């Protein structure tokens, strides 16, 4: 069906018509109205449907930002009037976003100026604190659906200094390389043109001077890394590179001083230049995706502390065990605490993925990360924020780091053998020549060291994996780091989650469960839910086909819990079971049920399920064809036969799995030697995603990500997943081919060098040539492979 929301482009189930355009929800309509009032229509002109769909209704409370200490920790600059703040807004994704965020001053005159940094997805806003206060500013951004992450400014690190220094090193190397190459031309052509020798000498000296900063500055990382590794008694790929660079430089300098030649400064600077390009390219692909979203950005910065003197807001860092805090409706609990006031409902979806709230009574422990639902409660803090269960989980994940992969591990081993054998060969060669023909000894010795180029080893991996990562990114699979490519290549077992991965969390299927006599209240129900923006309310509204709506006399929505109101003299309550009736009601499945009571008598319920995504069959079919396919779902067995028909192997489809069950299942697979890929929707399957060898989380909009995954995939790209896995595997071949090429080059080169037949001209040309060839080869082959597996380049 063709209809999409004018604002955000989503093709949701129900549409609202406003100003002759279709919108998917009231939220999008609201933003449209704000923009239209302020003549910011250009937002829609720059891009098609640039808006962002936001399901939260903007009732978040930012008043804790009024507190001095918290405010100062967020603002970059504040002098009483002018304030500047840098906010990270993950939903920035297009040029319209840039335009709108840089025209914020048109939305409120207190905003003076704003600038977007697109790569970091940040906006820096200068505003007059007297005209618009910080909480208002945040609320304004929330209202146009550009919700910022609120963090202390210490969390936002200084702009990558290492990135800058690498660029400068690269610039210096490039500058030197270009000029030295030009100055070497007379030497190359000295056989055809006659040029005075002293010119050539002069050019040689200039080349030397130009090469010095390259040696000492641009190449410094390689020397330092090689030295550090030597002290640890290990050999990394940087050692032969460092030796090579140093040897070329020393030999060339020696030749210059003894006027026996002009050296190979062009080879040296060229080598450093290409190596640095490789490094820069690799860094670039890593920076492009900032996965290091801190869990604390999910928490508010301030919490209401209750003391003898009353209540005030304090930064959450300051919470100690024994503090009494007040948590209101929809607020996140920042630390493990004991419930001290009456019963309440806690939504733990961030930690466990359970969307059904858990009932807690006085004295129960509530974990940090849960969201409180209902009237405000008082809690007694047990542990500080840093030591809560959630914080531990996160720390565990961070310390894991990137596992060493096969190829990189092999790389280190090869470089060890490589270095040792080169040193050996050059030693043997020089001894041989010292006996046979001493004049050639020095030439042969240094030529061997110069011509032996580990460049393929250093360049093929970053360029191949980097390009694979780039292509996968175009297909909406975003890898945390290019090393994940290798992990993807080794996968032989695929485990999928059902909810959110095969089903669409935003589309619902509603069935009603009412006795015939109470079906008459549907008119009233439809009238009441019309006032709510909650996705479940909308789903019910769509489902009910009556068109005779009654008048609503009063309406009240308690977020996360339910609605109540009076419609035509009937007092209706719609929502969670605990809200609607306190009596026990049989519930034999754990799909979401919305209950309805009329005048305090339970009338029935709606069973609401997510529907399968359009491409689910293709996904299951393709994956089960080439890989061992497993399914782990927290839902009931209802869908088992449907899925089984496509995938086969019913014993590999498990249901009613808790997060721990999923984790254990993955562990068992691993113990049987399987290399597992887990695809889940992030929060829910956090444990399993971490446990598996590769974890991919599915996202509707790829701005939300989970720290437990190695990659994110957009839901619509799932049907191409098996192509992507094949592509990753095939790209390993490209790496091998470049290794072979480099090996051959080295064999031939060393043979000639050792036999004393290697002319300086040939050596000078071969070195950068081999580097360039590797890079070009890797890129072209990868691209061709991409096309073979039907992926865009």
């Amino acid at each position, binding site marked *: 069906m063709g209809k999409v929301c004018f604002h955000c482009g989503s093709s949701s189930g129900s549409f609202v018509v406003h100003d002759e355009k279709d919108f998917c929800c009231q939220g999008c309509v609201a933003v449209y109205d704000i923009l239209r009032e302020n003549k910011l229509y250009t937002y829609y002109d720059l891009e098609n449907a640039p808006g962002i769909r936001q399901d939260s209704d903007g009732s978040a409370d930012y008043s804790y930002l009024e507190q001095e200490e918290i405010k100062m920790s967020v603002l970059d600059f504040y002098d009483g009037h002018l304030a500047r703040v840098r906010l990270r807004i993950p939903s920035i994704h297009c040029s319209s976003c840039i335009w709108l965020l840089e025209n914020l001053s048109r939305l409120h005159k207190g905003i003076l100026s704003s600038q977007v940094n697109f*790569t970091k997805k940040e906006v820096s806003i200068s505003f007059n604190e007297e005209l618009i206060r910080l909480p208002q500013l945040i609320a304004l951004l929330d209202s146009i659906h550009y919700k910022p992450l609120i963090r202390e400014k210490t969390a936002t690190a200084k702009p990558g200094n290492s990135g*800058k220094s690498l660029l400068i090193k690269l610039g210096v190397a490039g*500058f030197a390389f270009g000029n030295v190459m030009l100055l070497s031309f007379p030497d190359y052509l000295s056989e055809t043109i006659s040029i005075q020798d002293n010119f050539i000498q002069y050019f040689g000296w200039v080349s030397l001077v*130009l090469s010095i900063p390259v040696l000492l500055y641009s190449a410094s990382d390689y020397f330092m890394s090689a030295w550090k590794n030597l002290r640890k008694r290990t050999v990394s790929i940087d050692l032969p590179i460092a030796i090579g660079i140093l040897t070329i430089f020393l030999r060339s300098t020696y030749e210059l001083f003894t006027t026996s030649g002009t050296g190979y400064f062009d080879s040296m600077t060229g080598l450093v230049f290409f190596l640095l390009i490789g490094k820069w390219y690799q860094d670039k692909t890593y920076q492009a995706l900032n996965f290091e979203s801190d869990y604390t950005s999910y928490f508010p910065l301030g919490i209401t502390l209750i003391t003898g003197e009353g209540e005030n807001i304090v930064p959450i860092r300051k919470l100690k065990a024994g503090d009494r805090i007040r948590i209101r409706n929809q607020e996140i609990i920042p630390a493990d605490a004991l419930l001290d006031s009456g019963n309440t409902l806690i939504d733990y979806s961030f930690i466990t993925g359970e969307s059904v709230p858990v009932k807690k009574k006085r004295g129960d422990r509530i974990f940090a990360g849960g969201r409180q639902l209902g009237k405000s409660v008082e809690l007694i803090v047990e542990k500080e924020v840093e030591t809560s269960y959630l914080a531990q989980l996160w720390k565990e994940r961070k310390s894991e780091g990137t596992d060493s992969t096969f190829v990189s591990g092999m790389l280190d081993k090869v470089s060890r053998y490589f270095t040792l054998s080169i040193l050996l060969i050059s030693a043997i060669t020089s001894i041989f020549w010292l006996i046979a023909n001493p004049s050639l000894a020095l030439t042969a010795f240094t030529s061997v060291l110069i011509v032996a180029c580990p460049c393929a080893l250093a360049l093929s991996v970053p360029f191949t994996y980097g390009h694979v990562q780039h292509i996968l990114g175009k297909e909406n699979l975003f890898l945390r780091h290019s090393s994940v490519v290798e992990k993807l290549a080794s996968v032989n077992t695929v485990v999928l989650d059902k909810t959110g991965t095969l089903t669409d969390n935003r589309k619902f299927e509603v069935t009603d469960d009412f006795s015939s006599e109470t079906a008459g209240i549907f008119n009233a129900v439809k009238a009441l839910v019309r006032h709510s923006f909650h996705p479940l309310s909308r789903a019910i509204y769509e489902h009910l086909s009556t068109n005779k709506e009654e008048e609503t006399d009063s309406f009240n929505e308690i977020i996360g819990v339910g609605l109540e109101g009076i419609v035509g003299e009937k007092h209706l309550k719609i929502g969670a079971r605990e809200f609607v009736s306190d009596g026990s009601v049989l519930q034999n499945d754990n799909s979401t049920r919305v209950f309805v009571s009329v005048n305090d008598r339970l009338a029935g319920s709606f069973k609401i399920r997510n529907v399968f995504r359009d491409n689910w069959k293709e996904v299951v079919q393709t994956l089960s064809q080439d890989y061992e396919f497993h399914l782990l779902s927290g839902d009931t067995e209802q869908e088992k036969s449907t899925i089984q028909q496509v995938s086969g192997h019913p014993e590999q489809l498990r249901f009613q799995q808790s997060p721990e069950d999923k984790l254990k299942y993955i562990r068992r697979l691993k113990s049987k030697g399987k290399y597992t890929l887990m695809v889940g929707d992030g929060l829910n399957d956090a444990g399993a995603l971490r446990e598996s060898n590769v974890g991919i989380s599915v996202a509707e909009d790829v701005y939300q990500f989970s720290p437990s995954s190695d990659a994110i995939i957009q839901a619509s790209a799932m049907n191409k997943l098996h192509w992507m896995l094949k592509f990753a595997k095939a790209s390993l071949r490209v790496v091998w081919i470049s290794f072979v090429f480099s090996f051959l080059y080295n064999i031939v080169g060393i043979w000639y060098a050792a036999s004393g037949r290697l002319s300086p001209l040939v050596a000078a040309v071969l070195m950068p040539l081999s580097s360039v060839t590797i890079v070009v080869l890797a890129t072209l082959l990868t691209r061709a492979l991409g096309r073979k597996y039907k992926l865009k380049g």
Partner: protein
Amino acid sequence: MGERRIFLSVFLLILDLQNENMSVIFLLILISLVVAVVFLGAFIWAVRSNQYEDDYSPSVRMLFDDEQPDKAS
């Protein structure tokens, strides 16, 4: 006949003017290097003043119109 003599003399003059001493090249190379170093310095300055931090938005920002916000009608 007269033209040919003129051509010949011009030709000999040019040959005579050609100086085989190309030592000015020492200076020329130095000057061009200085110019090149100035550009390298400009590059380093650009990197350090964070101009390479965001390489996407400037390309987009360039294309925005300088709108005059109209008075509310």
